[in-house]
C-alpha cells in the first residue's frame, strides 16, 4: 500500500491535457492508493501551488496548451517547491534532458508502466518517512 508514515496517502498531482492519458494514469495511481488531483495545463498546476496546495509528487506531461510542462516545472521550482518530486512524462522519448534542465527529478516515457510507477511511489514514501523520523 502506497502511503506515508502514519497512513496518510501519497498526494499526487497529475498534469496532462489528454483525457485518455489522465484517466489511465489516475487509475494506475489509485492502485497505489494515491490521492490524485488532475490539472489539464501547466497553468492549472501552477495555480494549485499558488493556492497553497501541497503535493508529494507531480507527474507532468510535456506538451500542453496555455503553459507546457517544462515551463510549469520551472515555475514550480522557482516558487521554492524544491521537495516535491517531479516526474516528467512524454510520448517524446528523448525529453529527458529538457525536463531535467527545467528542474524535474526524473523523466519517464509514456505510457508509464505499473512497476515503474510503483518504484517511484515507493521512493516518495521512503523519503517522506525518512524526513519524519
Amino acid at each position, binding site marked *: 500500500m502506497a502511503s506515508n508514515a502514519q497512513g496518510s496517502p501519497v498526494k499526487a498531482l497529475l498534469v496532462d*491535457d*489528454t*483525457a*485518455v*492519458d489522465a*484517466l*489511465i494514469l489516475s*487509475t*494506475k495511481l*489509485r*492502485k497505489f492508493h494515491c490521492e490524485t488531483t488532475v490539472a489539464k495545463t501547466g497553468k492549472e498546476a501552477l495555480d494549485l501551488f499558488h493556492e497553497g496546495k501541497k503535493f508529494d509528487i507531480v507527474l507532468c506531461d510535456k*506538451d500542453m496548451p496555455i503553459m507546457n510542462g517544462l515551463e510549469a516545472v520551472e515555475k514550480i521550482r522557482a516558487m521554492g517547491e524544491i521537495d516535491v518530486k517531479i516526474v516528467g512524462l512524454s*510520448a517524446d522519448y528523448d525529453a529527458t534532458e529538457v525536463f531535467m534542465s527545467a528542474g524535474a527529478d526524473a523523466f519517464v516515457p*509514456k*505510457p508509464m*508502466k505499473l512497476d515503474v510507477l510503483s518504484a517511484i511511489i515507493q521512493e516518495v514514501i521512503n523519503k517522506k518517512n525518512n524526513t519524519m523520523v
Partner: protein
Amino acid sequence: MEYANLRRQAASLKRSLFDQGYLDEQFCQVEDLQDEASPNFAEEVVSLFFKDSARLVSNIEQAMEKYPGDFNRWDAHMQQLKGSCFSIGASKMNNECTLFRNSCGEENAEGCRRSFQKVKREHAILRQKLESYFQLLRQAGPARTATRSGGK
C-alpha cells in the same frame, strides 16, 4: 453455454484485432487495469478515446481548411491524436498519424491530405470493431468461475 460462446467470440475478435495490427500490447495494459472497482475500465477508456479523438479529427480537419500550409499547426493537432492512439494501443491509427506528421515535417500538403484520409478511415474501422468487441463482452456478462456440478 451461451456465455462461454460469447466469450470465445470476443476473444477471437480481439485476437484478430491484434493479428491484423489494429491493436498492440498497450491495449492489454489498459485491460489489465480492470478490477472489481472498475470492471468496465477498458470500455470506459475506449469510449473516452473515441469521444476525444472525434473532436481531435474535427480540429485537424478545420485546421487544414482554415490554415492551409500551416504545417506546424496541423502537426500540433495530430500530435495530440497520436498520443491518445498510442495510449490505448490503437496501432494502425498511430502509424497513420505518424505518416501525417512526417508529411508535415516535409511540408507535403498532398501527403498530409492522403494520410489524414487514412487516419479517418482507420478511426472508423477501429471504432466499429471495438464496439463489436465490447458488445460481445457485455452480452457475455461478467466472467464466471467454474463450479463443481452436483454431488456432496
